[in-house]
């Protein structure tokens, strides 16, 4: 393939001055770190919320002092009201799914690493890139603002089903401005994600350095690229969905609100809308969204494994990449599996069930590839590997839950039970998080030029791994027993016996959360006190390890990077850099 002489993406000289350098920077590396930091903050907010939820579930009349400062009427006398529980739950889900897991693994690491991995000096559209971060930031601020406005955050769940989410304050506390802010916040998040996806796609296709043919792209790049494609279509549908919801709330329209609704004896003016329309639109986005969350995790793990098992993945780049592409494509035809009992035609249920079961095939292929790549390998148990292995175990467990939920017959019992909560915490809520951690431990030296503490990293891993199973495997089991989700207290004759089990879950959850502070300490402390990082501490082969840590402003100090190898040329201690025709780095 003949290379062409093209203007590299360095339209801009290194910026001067603090603001341009660190705040409104167009440098993809700074933006990547901004995204990562944002999602780190968001994650701890979300975690604090889950703590409050768990405490309330285990000890319904416990006093939670700090929260009562935040919301006097949500926490009269420091005791959480049922509606405030739901508000916290809604924001927990929203923040975690959008601002943590759609931010860090994709926009955070992707921004920092993708241009370097393809040998570009920056993203294709640096200003657009900056715009998408700051739009995301405003979205996050709006989401947090719901906590301080008088009527508090919305209580309609992260799925915001109308009419509950559409008719306004009549439906309950938090359904006033809380819900409006929620809608606007998500709408902004959509816009940002669309801009980001556009940037990722164009960068991958247009800015590959000489020799970086598509077949030599690192798997992580492939994952981000495929994921950008999925985001581009999915968020383009969530955006109008949010707009229509806000129109129903503020414009008096009735897209999602049928006629004849009565709230405390008041007949509502609306007529003719359809709640199912919203469910279809939301889940048409919602299911791809969950794969938008897992695909970067696939990429990160596929990128990290070869480095630490010192051999390529089975089947090279092709099989795993096709598996990811298949998952991404199929994810658009299965959304109805969230609506089996929602009054959709039972025949449609079958229509959605079959592709849902088939989408497990590419996932199984991916898992088999990862697991069987370990065969006769040479494992190096640094923290990134541990978290990658943790990811494998968690993803298998979470995915297996999918088999139960994918069938209308069994789902009609398990739907809306804690089995579902367990399922999506294993998949989304923690295998993706574990991959995010793996990426963090793996790339931190490159991002900040310092090593994280291995000791603390390992402690963090063991506590998290055990904690996760204690919390969410137990939720699967109580789900079998028919424990219902989104309950702020267990008053049913049926749920009362499960209270001790829930105490256990809560205690485990508190410990699991506590373990995250080890991570936080490690991340902050090492930033200043950690040992200086070598350029290539892991003995890896891709371009990001072929430059200084952290990389210079134009990523390669003006060197012409010429790629002559695939990304996974490992053999035991030996490994071949993508750029080097002859020399090979000895594994550290």
């Amino acid at each position: 393939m003949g290379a062409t002489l093209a203007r590299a993406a360095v339209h801009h000289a290194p910026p001067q001055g603090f603001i341009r350098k660190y705040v409104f920077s167009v440098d993809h590396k700074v933006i990547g770190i901004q995204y990562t930091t944002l999602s780190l903050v968001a994650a701890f907010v979300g975690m604090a919320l889950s703590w409050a939820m768990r405490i309330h579930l285990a000890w319904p009349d416990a006093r939670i002092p700090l929260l009562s400062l935040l919301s006097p009427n949500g926490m009269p006398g420091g005791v959480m009201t049922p509606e405030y529980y739901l508000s916290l739950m809604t924001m927990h889900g929203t923040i975690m799914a959008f601002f943590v897991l759609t931010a860090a693994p994709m926009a955070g690491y992707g921004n920092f690493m993708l241009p370097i991995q393809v040998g570009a000096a920056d993203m294709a559209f640096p200003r657009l890139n900056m715009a998408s971060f700051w739009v995301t930031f405003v979205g996050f601020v709006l989401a947090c603002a719901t906590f301080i406005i008088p009527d508090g955050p919305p209580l309609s769940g992260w799925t915001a089903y109308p009419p509950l989410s559409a008719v306004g304050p009549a439906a309950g506390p938090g359904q006033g401005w809380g819900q409006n802010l929620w809608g606007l916040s998500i709408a902004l998040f959509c816009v940002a994600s669309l801009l980001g996806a556009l940037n990722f796609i164009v960068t991958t296709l247009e800015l590959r350095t000489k020799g970086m043919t598509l077949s030599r792209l690192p798997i992580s790049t492939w994952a981000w690229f495929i994921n950008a494609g999925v985001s581009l279509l999915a968020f383009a549908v969530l955006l109008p969905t949010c707009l229509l919801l806000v129109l129903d709330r503020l414009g008096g329209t009735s897209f999602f609100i049928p006629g004849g609704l009565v709230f405390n004896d008041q007949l509502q003016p609306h007529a003719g809308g359809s709640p199912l329309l919203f469910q279809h639109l939301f889940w048409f986005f919602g299911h791809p969204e969950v794969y938008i969350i897992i695909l970067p995790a696939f990429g990160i793990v596929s990128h990290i494994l070869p480095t630490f098992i010192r051999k390529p993945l089975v089947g090279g780049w092709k099989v795993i990449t096709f598996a990811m592409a298949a998952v991404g494509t199929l994810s658009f035809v299965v959304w109805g599996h969230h609506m089996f009992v929602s009054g959709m035609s039972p025949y449609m249920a079958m229509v959605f069930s079959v592709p849902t079961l088939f989408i497990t095939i590419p996932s199984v292929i991916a898992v088999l590839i990862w697991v069987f790549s370990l065969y006769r390998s040479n494992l190096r148990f640094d923290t990134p590997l541990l978290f990658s292995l943790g990811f494998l175990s968690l993803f298998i467990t979470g995915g297996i839950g999918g088999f139960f939920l994918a069938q209308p017959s069994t789902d009609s019992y398990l739907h809306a039970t804690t089995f579902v909560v367990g399922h999506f915490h294993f998949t989304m809520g923690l295998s993706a998080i574990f991959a995010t951690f793996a990426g963090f431990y793996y790339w931190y030296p490159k991002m900040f030029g310092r090593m994280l503490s291995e000791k603390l990293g390992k402690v963090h891993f063991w506590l998290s791994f055990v904690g996760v199973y204690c919390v969410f495997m137990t939720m699967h089991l109580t789900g079998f027993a028919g424990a219902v989700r989104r309950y702020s207290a267990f008053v049913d004759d049926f749920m009362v016996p499960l209270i001790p089990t829930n105490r256990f879950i809560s205690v485990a959850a508190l410990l699991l959360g506590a373990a995250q502070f080890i991570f936080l300490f490690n991340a902050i402390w090492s930033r200043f006190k950690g040992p200086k990082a070598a350029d290539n501490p892991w003995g890896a082969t891709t371009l990001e390890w072929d430059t200084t840590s952290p990389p210079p402003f134009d990523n390669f100090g003006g060197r012409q990077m010429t790629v002559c190898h695939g990304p996974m040329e490992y053999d035991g201690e030996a490994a071949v850099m993508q750029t080097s025709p002859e020399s090979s780095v000895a594994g550290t």
Partner: protein
Amino acid sequence: MDQSSVAATTHHDVVMEPSPYAIEKKKLGMWVFIVSDACTFGAFLFAYGYMRVGAPVWGTPFEFSSILNGVVMTAVLLSSSLTMLASVRAAQAGAKASAMKWLGVTMLLGGIFAALHLREWFKLIGEGWRLFHNPTGGAAQFGATFFSVTGLHLSHVVSGVIALAFIARGYQRDRYDASHVETVGLYWHFVDLVWMFVFPLMYLMNAR
């Protein structure tokens, strides 16, 4: 091309893999944007269809004058696509003056389209149509879908005119070249194409 010359180049000229589609990034970016924007319109139109099928009675308010107005708008927008084309051709041929002229005409036509559209809107509003009210007693969803879908399209037209003005200014001062004109042209044709769906669905299907 030979590598030795590359080695010598400054770090601002780096040898890259050729784009798989052999188009430069601005244009690819615009195509990608168009794909996702099409999905957004698609979702709006899907909602419209869903509402319409679900409605027991769907008032069809447009009498001949509105349809005629719509036809004129369509003609205006179509011809604006042609003038856009002419402008791009001229720009690529390096005929700056005529490219600018055609850009001007395109913006003018865009403006006329917007004006006609707003006139239609105010007429309807005058007749009592609202996002949530249907004076003919039919489904209130008519107003909701009509104003939101055409509103979305109108906003695209207006921002298109602004973009054209912006590009024209840069092109005038040689900050931008023919490729910029071509890229904004892509957007303009897309807005036109969308109207080719909106017009039959929103006007013709709602004719008395």
